[in-house]
C-alpha cells in the first residue's frame, strides 16, 4: 500500500510541476537566483543519490562490488562513452567482481 501511495503522490506532483512550467507566463520565474537554485538542486540530489546507492544498503554504510562498478561507470563517462554503455559497464564490472568473490 505504501508503495502505491508513493507512486500516486509522485505521479500527481511530477505532472503538476511540468504543467505549471508550461502555464506560468514567461518571466515569472526568471529571477537569476531562482534559476541558479533550480540548476543546482538536481546536482545536489543526484550526487546524494549516487552516494547513497553506491555506498550503502539504505541504512548503513557499506562497501561492496557496486563501488567498483560505479567507479568503472565514472571512468566510462570521462571517456565520453554513451549513456547506455556507461550503465552496462557498471553492471558488468559489478557482476564480475561478485563472481570473483568480491
Amino acid at each position, binding site marked *: 500500500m*505504501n*508503495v*502505491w501511495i*508513493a*507512486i500516486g*503522490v*509522485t505521479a500527481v*506532483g*511530477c*505532472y503538476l*510541476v*511540468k*504543467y505549471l*512550467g*508550461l*502555464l*506560468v507566463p*514567461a518571466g*515569472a*520565474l*526568471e529571477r537569476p*537566483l531562482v*534559476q*541558479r537554485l*533550480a*540548476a*543546482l*538542486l538536481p*546536482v*545536489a*540530489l*543526484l*550526487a*546524494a*543519490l*549516487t*552516494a*547513497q*546507492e*553506491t*555506498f550503502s544498503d*539504505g*541504512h*548503513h*554504510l557499506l562497501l561492496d*562490488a557496486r563501488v567498483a*562498478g*560505479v567507479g568503472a*561507470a*565514472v571512468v566510462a*563517462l570521462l571517456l565520453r562513452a*554513451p549513456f*547506455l554503455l556507461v*550503465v552496462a559497464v*557498471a*553492471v*558488468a564490472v*559489478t*557482476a564480475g567482481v*561478485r563472481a570473483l568473490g568480491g
Partner: protein
Amino acid sequence: MPSPAPPVHPAKTPPRSAVVRDALGVGVAVGLSGFAFGVTASGAGLTVLQACALSLLVFTGASQFALVGALAAGGNPFTAAAGALFLGTRNAFYGLRLSGLLGYRAAVKPFAAHWVIDETSAVTLAQPDRRSARLGFTVTGLSLYALWNLTTLAGVLGAEALGDTEAWGLDAAGPAVFVALLGPMLKTTAERATAGLGAVLLLVTLPLLPAGAPVLVASLAAPAVLWADGRRARTRTGDAPSTTETENGTREAGAR
C-alpha cells in the same frame, strides 16, 4: 513569443528529416534505458504493475529511480516522494522556456506537459523556429515515451526471470544512471562543489537519520553553495583588485 535561436543554428529552417533524425536518436538511446529502470524497480521489490505505472504516469527518469531507491531503503512514502518531486522541479523550468517556443494552445498544454523532460527540452530548445520545435518535441516525446514504457516492462519481466538480480550486478544500474545524468551537469566550480557537498552530507547523515531524510538534507548543498558564492562575490566587489585577479583565475580553471 518564440525564444531567439541559439547561435550554433543559422536562422533558416532545418529540413524536417534532420529534425526527425536528431529527435529519434535521442528518443531511442534514452528510451532503451527504461530497461535499467525496470530491473532496478524489480530489485527494489516493486511489482510489474507498480514499475509500469511509474513509467507511464511519472515519466521522468531521475525521479523514478530516486523514488524506487528510497522505497528500497525503507523510506516512508512521503519522504520518498519528496525526493522524487524535488528532482522533478527542474521540468517546470524547462516548461517555462518551451512554452513560448512551442506556442501550444491552452487545450493542448495539459497533454504536452507530460512529455516535458530533459531530453525533449534539449531537442526542442535547439530548434530555430516553431515548426521544427513542435516536430522535434513530438518525435522525441513519442519515441521516448513508447520505448521507455516498453523497456520498463521488459526490464521488470527480465529481472524476475533472472531471479537474483544482484548476482548479475544489476543493482549497480541505478547509481550508474545517476552518474551518467550528473556528469554533464558538472561544468562549473559551483556545480562541482554542490555535488561534493551533497554526497558528503548524505554519507554523514545516512547512519543517523531515518531513511529518506538524508537525501533531503543533502539537497541543502544547493542553497549553501549559492549562499557561499554570493558572499564571495560580495567580498570580492568590496576588495582590492589583486583578489579579483586570483578569483578570475580559479573561475576560468573551474569552467574547464
